[in-house]
């Protein structure tokens, strides 16, 4: 029989204002197993904790029921109190009479009744608690960063500088991500490449960093401290060790008509290529879909010209298996394609561009050498219209419901850059709202609107019409409440930031949860913004939600620090509330295995002595290091063999019984 102490907290007036503390404390005393009950203004304070410790000593308590706030808030606190009093920390139960009761009810009488019932349930459960002991596991001192944009690079540099090994797996042939494509960056208008490329080189040259470019993650197994990952290094058709980056092959390649991904299709590249001059690593890739040698078996000019014999058409994908203690996701985004919005004529008129295409056009190393022109006739535009929120803040059927956060700022940037370079061009911006929170951000926008005389129009564009080569923009001006038309030579669409849908497969591999927009979800939106709910997985950059470069870099550093928190430990203490199967009852039916999201359940063939009856059976076994205690298996198990320590079926049933008791 337990000797239970029940402690009822006032939480100042937070609970006491609505719940009759005295009544709850008194009726707790009558519950089975309770030998002591008390109340206190702030149970979590020094004084409250001391009162608990004294009571344990004086009354020989074996378990503590605290009626207070959410266990998310102070369960750890009271577990520590129990441990300090010499009890097993898992001999603590919390009845949440604040969030679940006083905060959501007004009527004192019914709130008191509910608090009493919640207290009863906690005590009924506590009567069945058993001491639990967490296991320990080791830590592989290496981090994996998936995605080599500015987020991934920054996280990797921070971890590497702290003295730990980091691998970056980047899907494309070079690291750098979207930032490499940008021309100038707000709010300071410094050149993007000038601040990014040194970091790319730092990452490549760092002793602790290994780059796996043109690579993807194929398989992930294991758990925090000990992930095992298969990396697929795709065949580049170029031997990385032999290539010296001279680029002769690229000049020689007769195929010149492949679309350049880096220039968003606005320029052409050869079949063997490096995405851009400052690519890291500076090793070309053969795009097998466009290569004549792969299409027809003939050509091979690059092979002939290469002085180091680095071209290898037979090269195969290589699978590399590595162990990691932590994984940081930094897979970034891709801008939404506006093709689905027929009204904007994107894809129909060459003079309608996305903002990212516009970045390329403004860039001195871009497809037009930094000269702004209409792609339809190579003439300089006289009037440009920017349309914001294309696909953002829409209803779910038409686009993304969220604000993409960066478009107001980069559109202001674009408008200003145009005006700076070509003061005679008319620039109009259509917006729903201009949102510029951030250090020096509003000043930046106002400079565009006030100093540079950019015509900001609050309104929605209904459609574009191609009128003899000019683009007629038909829109509503919401402030004047009237329809307007503007003739433009160039239209730029600020398209929504979208997480690429193929990262969902990665999310499933990592068992890291994602929201409906394919952004990775954080463990807590306010308090744990860079951690995924899955232990050992961290989030860096836009893969978690739209953000600009300063925010991305800040989050990248935060993710690195969280990851270092694990890497710097020699042992990880597990959570003892994990599943366990009763071999006598187990059918070996695989129901639990099928639902376990973490792959924690394995089977063994084993001789079982079932009350003298010996036979070989297939039985389930839970890998304690992998199990996260989610409980999915216990619900699926038909025989009741699978049970969750700390939340056993009997404990839950006892709670339900206590709640239903009249």
């Amino acid at each position, binding site marked *: 029989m337990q000797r239970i102490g029940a402690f009822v907290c006032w939480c100042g007036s937070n609970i006491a204002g609505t719940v009759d503390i005295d009544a709850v404390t008194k009726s707790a005393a009558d519950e089975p197993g309770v030998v002591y009950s008390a109340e206190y203004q702030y149970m979590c304070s020094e004084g409250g904790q001391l009162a608990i410790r004294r009571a344990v000593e004086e009354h020989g308590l074996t378990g503590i029921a605290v009626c207070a706030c959410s266990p998310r808030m102070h369960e750890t606190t009271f577990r520590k109190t129990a441990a300090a009093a010499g009890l097993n920390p898992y001999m603590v139960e919390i009845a949440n009479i604040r969030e679940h009761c006083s905060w959501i009810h007004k009527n004192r009488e019914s709130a008191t009744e509910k608090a009493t019932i919640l207290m009863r349930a906690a005590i009924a459960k506590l009567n069945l608690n058993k001491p639990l002991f967490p296991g320990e596991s080791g830590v592989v001192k290496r981090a994996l960063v998936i995605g080599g944009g500015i987020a991934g690079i920054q996280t990797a540099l921070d971890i590497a500088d702290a003295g730990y090994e980091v691998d970056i797996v980047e899907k494309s042939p070079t690291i750098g991500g979207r930032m490499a494509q940008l021309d100038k960056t707000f709010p300071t208008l410094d050149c993007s490449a000038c601040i990014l490329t040194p970091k790319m080189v730092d990452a490549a040259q760092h002793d602790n960093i290994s780059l796996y470019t043109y690579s993807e993650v194929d398989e992930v197994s294991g758990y925090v401290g000990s992930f095992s990952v298969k990396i697929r290094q795709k065949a580049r058709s170029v031997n990385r060790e032999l290539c010296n980056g001279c680029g002769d092959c690229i000049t020689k390649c007769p195929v010149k008509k492949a679309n350049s991904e880096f220039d968003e299709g606005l320029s052409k590249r050869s079949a063997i290529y490096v995405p851009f001059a400052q690519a890291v690593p500076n090793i070309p890739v053969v795009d097998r879909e466009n290569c004549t040698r792969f299409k027809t078996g003939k050509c091979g000019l690059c092979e002939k010209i290469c002085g180091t014999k680095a071209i290898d058409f037979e090269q195969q994908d290589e699978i590399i298996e590595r162990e990691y203690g932590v994984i940081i996701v930094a897979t970034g985004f891709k801008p939404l394609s506006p093709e689905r919005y027929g009204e904007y004529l994107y894809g129909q008129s060459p003079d309608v561009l996305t903002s990212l295409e516009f970045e390329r056009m403004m860039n001195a190393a871009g497809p037009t050498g930094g000269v702004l022109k209409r792609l339809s006739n190579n003439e300089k535009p006289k009037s440009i219209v920017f349309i914001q929120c294309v696909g953002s803040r829409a209803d779910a059927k038409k686009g993304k419901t969220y604000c993409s956060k960066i478009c107001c700022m980069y559109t202001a940037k674009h408008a200003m850059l145009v005006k700076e370079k070509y003061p005679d061009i008319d620039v109009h911006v259509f917006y729903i709202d201009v949102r510029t929170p951030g250090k020096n951000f509003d000043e930046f926008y106002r400079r565009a609107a006030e100093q540079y005389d950019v015509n900001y129009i609050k309104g929605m564009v209904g459609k574009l019409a191609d009128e003899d080569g000019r683009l007629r923009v038909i829109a509503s001006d919401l402030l004047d409440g009237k329809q307007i038309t503007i003739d433009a030579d160039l239209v730029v669409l600020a398209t929504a930031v979208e997480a690429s849908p193929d990262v969902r497969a990665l999310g499933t591999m990592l068992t890291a949860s994602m929201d409906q927009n394919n952004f990775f979800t954080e463990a807590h939106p306010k308090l744990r913004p860079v951690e995924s709910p899955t232990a050992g997985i961290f989030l860096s950059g836009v893969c978690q939600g739209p953000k600009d470069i300063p925010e991305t870099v800040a989050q990248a550093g935060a993710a690195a620090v969280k990851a270092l928190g694990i890497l710097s430990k020699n042992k990880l203490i597990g959570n003892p509330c994990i599943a366990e199967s009763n071999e006598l009852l187990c059918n070996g039916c695989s129901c639990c295995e099928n639902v376990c999201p973490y792959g924690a359940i394995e089977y063994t063939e084993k001789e079982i002595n079932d009350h003298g009856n010996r036979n070989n059976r297939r039985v389930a076994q839970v890998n304690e290091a992998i199990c996260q205690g989610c409980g999915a298996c216990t619900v699926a198990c038909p025989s009741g063999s699978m049970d969750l320590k700390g939340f056993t079926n*009997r404990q839950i049933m006892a709670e339900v019984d206590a709640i239903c008791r009249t």
Partner: protein
Amino acid sequence: MQRVEGEIKQKAHELLKSGVVSSVLAWKKGDLVYDAAPAFFKSPNALEDMVYNGFCCSNLSKYLIEKDSENEKVLVFLKPCDTYSLNQLLSNHRVIKDKIYAVGIGCDGKIDIEKLRAKGVKGILEIEEDGESLKIQTLYGDETCVRRDILLEKCLNCKGKDHMVYDELIGSELSEETALGDKFSQVDELEKMSSDDRFEFWRCELSKCIRCNACRNVCPSCTCRKCVFDNPHSGVNAKVNVTDFEENMFHIIRAFHVAGRCSDCGECTRVCPQGIPLQLLNRKFIKDINNFYGDFQAGETVESRSPLFDYNFEDIEPNVISKGRGIN
């Protein structure tokens, strides 16, 4: 089907004699022609009592789980519908494929003795089956009858005459289609009732239950080594035995336990001595699963995973259950 019986016996004889199997699971003659019951035959001589006729309705697959730990191989004869159950047992690892030799046999639909009796046919001595028409010798003279009129409920909702798993087939080409119509029509009717009426309906039906456990014991999806209702530590075994809700609990929990695994074999309804339409409860689950996750037939293949026990890349996150996928 008389021809099939001969072939079956021959096959059993052959495999027993050659030692490929050490026992045969089939149907055994009873005192009366309609008493055919599942039985294991261990020697060629014993095969004399083996039968295969319109009364061999029991699904033999469930009897295989007793064999999972013995060192012998069993020959089992399975009608098309029984093979769904076998697949289910295989995928739950309750029967090991290597330990059995499954012979799929043809089926024209099995006879419901109660329906025959209701037609006033009594003192049955022998039945001669000739496709659709049945000749029945009785103590009181000969009768004839159309098979369709006296088929078991489960046969009227036959899933088809194809075997889902087998090592060999016998006489399957002779099978006559018996399915009559929409297996969910009764579920639809129940759904149309007000919730009070429906509650009354089930209370009334389930109150007839005498807890003989026949439904549970026959069910090829209900295969726990120790049923939660027999386990004093489960916390549900005697949960409500103080009230008349116990039987209701039993059946609700059973329906949940077989949800996604019930192949709709109809054995539960068939064996209930109280005539409770148990299968109807399971069909409601089957219908809902189909609505939520797309059509699913338990036991169609060994690999197929019930949507209730599956995760895949396409799964939506639990917090984003999209509207319109469920039932309204």
